[in-house]
């Protein structure tokens, strides 16, 4: 491993792929890159071309698409209402991601410490929401948060409230619902990261006199940081585009980017503006994704140093 031990001076070189490059794989184990051609062609025609057309449509000044110009972007970026929708959407993503991390990390922590049957049961509980229809999961929250829902009837039975609280169609209710819907995306990468953690490190830290909190902060967290960032990226990306949960639990009063795009396109048939908002939303998500990727790369160097 001497050839790979460059992490002290050059942390960015200390990633596994760099080391893997030094041994060239024998011919039988590799396949011709031509095998990617069918999918690459499919993606060029049905993924990149539509996105190019989206960009083209967004560069029209009027709904009838007769003249070119950047007015649609100006209309969005100079309008406090539109900017508010974008800002609120990105902020909801942050809240959901934070809540998922707060509950998901302990869940993953407990999972890797369970054995046998209990571990299998917990895995099914974690996977079930991922595979259950998102409409079904969201519908559950309508039942829970509704005026006659489980929260209100419990609080009324305990005598805490006289009249039912309005929980549905509030941002708080929606953040909790979204957190449940996206939780598996956070927990799965965390389980991977935690199960790769060498248990001896925890013992060593304890033997040197560190308490659990200190060990967690100084040993565990730095080592699982790449997993944390991977989980955050998936959760964030999924929660800001969660159309169903946003419209059903968020309701009509709270407008978010996906519904804004849908309204402009389907209800108002304002295609250039819908296209421009989509491009702005795509750009915003790409910016967040790149930020996460940079953080991920930095965290890997940090863990190796």
């Amino acid at each position, binding site marked *: 491993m001497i050839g790979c031990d460059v992490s002290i001076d050059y942390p960015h070189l200390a990633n596994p792929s760099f080391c893997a490059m030094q041994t060239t794989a*024998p011919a039988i184990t590799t396949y011709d890159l031509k095998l*990617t051609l*069918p999918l690459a062609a499919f993606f060029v025609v049905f993924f990149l*071309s539509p996105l190019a057309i989206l960009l083209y449509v967004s560069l029209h000044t009027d709904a009838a698409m007769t003249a070119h110009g950047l007015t649609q972007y100006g209309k969005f970026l100079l309008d406090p209402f539109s900017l508010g929708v974008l800002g609120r959407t990105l902020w909801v993503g942050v809240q959901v991601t934070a809540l998922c991390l707060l509950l998901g990390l302990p869940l993953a922590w407990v999972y890797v410490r369970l054995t046998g049957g209990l571990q*299998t049961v917990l895995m099914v509980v974690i996977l*079930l929401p991922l*595979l259950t229809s998102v409409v079904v999961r969201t*519908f559950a929250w309508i039942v829970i948060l509704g005026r006659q829902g489980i929260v209100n009837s419990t609080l009324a039975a305990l005598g805490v409230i006289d009249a039912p609280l309005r929980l549905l169609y509030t941002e708080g209710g929606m953040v909790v619902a979204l957190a449940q819907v996206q939780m598996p995306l956070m927990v799965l990468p965390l389980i991977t990261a935690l199960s790769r953690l060498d248990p001896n490190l925890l013992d060593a830290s304890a033997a040197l*006199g560190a308490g659990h909190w200190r060990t967690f902060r100084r040993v565990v967290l730095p080592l699982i940081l790449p997993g944390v960032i991977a989980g955050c990226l998936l959760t964030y990306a999924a929660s800001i585009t969660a159309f169903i949960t946003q419209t059903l639990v968020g309701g009509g009063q709270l407008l978010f980017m996906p519904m804004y795009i849908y309204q402009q396109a389907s209800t108002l048939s304002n295609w250039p503006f819908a296209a421009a908002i989509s491009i702005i939303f795509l750009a915003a998500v790409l910016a967040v994704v790149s930020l996460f990727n940079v953080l991920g790369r930095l965290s890997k160097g940090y863990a190796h140093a």
Partner: protein
Amino acid sequence: MTRQRQSLGDLSFTATIYGLALAGLALLLLPSLVVIIVSFTSGFSLKFPPPGYSWRWYVALLDAWQLHFAAANSFKVACWTTLLSVVLGVSASLAIARSTHWTARLLDSLFMSPLVLPALAFGIAALMFFSLIGLSISILTLIIGHTVVCVPYVIRTTVASLAQLNPALLESSASLGASRFYTFRRVTLPLIRPGIMAGAFIAFMSSFDNVPVSLFLRDARTDMLPIRMWQDLENRLDVTIAAVSGVMIAFTIAALIVMERISGLSRRLR
């Protein structure tokens, strides 16, 4: 043993971790349980706890032809999407899994990008694209759109199982005189089959559940189940939807257990 020196701090750590994990567990479990309980209500509202229990909403489901029609469409689209995703995805995975060439990395990022980009933006883009090239909205356009967003799942699990494949096995096969194709069919394919199956399963589920792409690419003739349910919920809070949800949860649990048995699904999702 240092374990004996359990201080107050260590206790608080354990209590916090387990407390939060329990809250997380409740958050994951509760909604599905609530839906199942409410679906057996004898009343006409989503009141919880229900006033009484009955099978009436499941019986009502038998006559809900709009839901049957949408479910049949969703099933058809999900089957074709899965088939197309596996054929295109596995072939691409074979090439990019072990390649260190820069084009392989670039293609990998391209094929994975539908996972993080807002699918709704792609849905509207696809609608504009299809209307521009004169391909009218049909089952076919839905299958194409779904394949773009479902193929990353197949690639992810297939590439992961290829990465775990011991190259020595392939080398021995070759040194014993097997051709490339024979080695692929008799050594590589059986070993990566669980990975492919896990990917295909997730692709199927995510196509069956897709909303952002279907939203723009379907019409009355090609109604899709999640969209139908969403519209029913937007218009009136129908208890029938609770019964549909109950059926879907039951199917998902059954599928999950079967897939865990035959492909070790949970290990492949991480």
